């Protein structure tokens, strides 16, 4: 059920296991998700370049990516001042979302940077 407020933003109701109704501002939620997406994508690209320049191959590169994403998650949690539920509806948004989409960008720029620095 959507309720119109004066600012034009909509509220959403979501329920958990105990049938408690929680409302949150969906527009702000989407804005926060966009911020996470941009941050992770940019850092995946930069991480790919760094991994390529360092000459990482195989599993080392993926381990580097995992560490980088863990570090990014920590940075995002710090940006949210460690009170996740003020800005997001679950911890998964900050910890897991964007992990796989960033991986493709990471591999692309990792290959590109490795080729430029070590092959050509």
């Amino acid at each position, binding site marked *: 059920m959507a*309720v119109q*407020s*004066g*600012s034009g*933003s909509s*509220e959403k109701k979501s329920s958990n296991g105990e049938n408690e109704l929680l*409302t*949150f*501002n*969906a527009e*702000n*939620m989407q*804005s*926060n998700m*966009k*911020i996470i997406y*941009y*941050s992770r994508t*940019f*850092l995946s690209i*930069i*991480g790919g*370049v*760094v991994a390529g*320049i*360092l*000459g990482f191959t195989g599993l080392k590169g993926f381990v580097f990516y995992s560490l980088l994403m863990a*570090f*990014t998650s920590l*940075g*995002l949690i710090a*940006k*949210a001042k460690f009170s996740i539920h*003020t*800005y*997001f*509806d679950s911890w998964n948004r900050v910890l897991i979302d964007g992990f796989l989409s960033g991986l493709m960008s990471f591999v692309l720029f990792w290959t590109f*940077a490795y080729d*430029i*620095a*070590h092959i050509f």
Partner: protein
Amino acid sequence: MGLGFAIGFIGVLILFHAAYSTIQYRTLLKITEEEFSGSPLNVVIELSLGLLLCTWAALTVPGKFLCILPHSEENRILLLSEPFIYDEVGRQPQADHTYVNDLLKS
């Protein structure tokens, strides 16, 4: 935001310099016919610094997180800042506080 962009730009420049240094190092290795066993220490330090600066830029440039709680201070102020609010038929309500009270009750 301007500062974030500048720091991100400096971070990217440092990465480019590190890439150039690595290319020169590889060329030297080809001349001396040695194998690449790892980047030199100065390149590793440059890359770490560039990564740190870019991380800071990535976390600050996209913007601030907005509160999603419906009864937070920011949202409440936004509701109260509109004195003339019309209902579906287009009639102005009798008093502003009536509309706000109704909203808060629902």
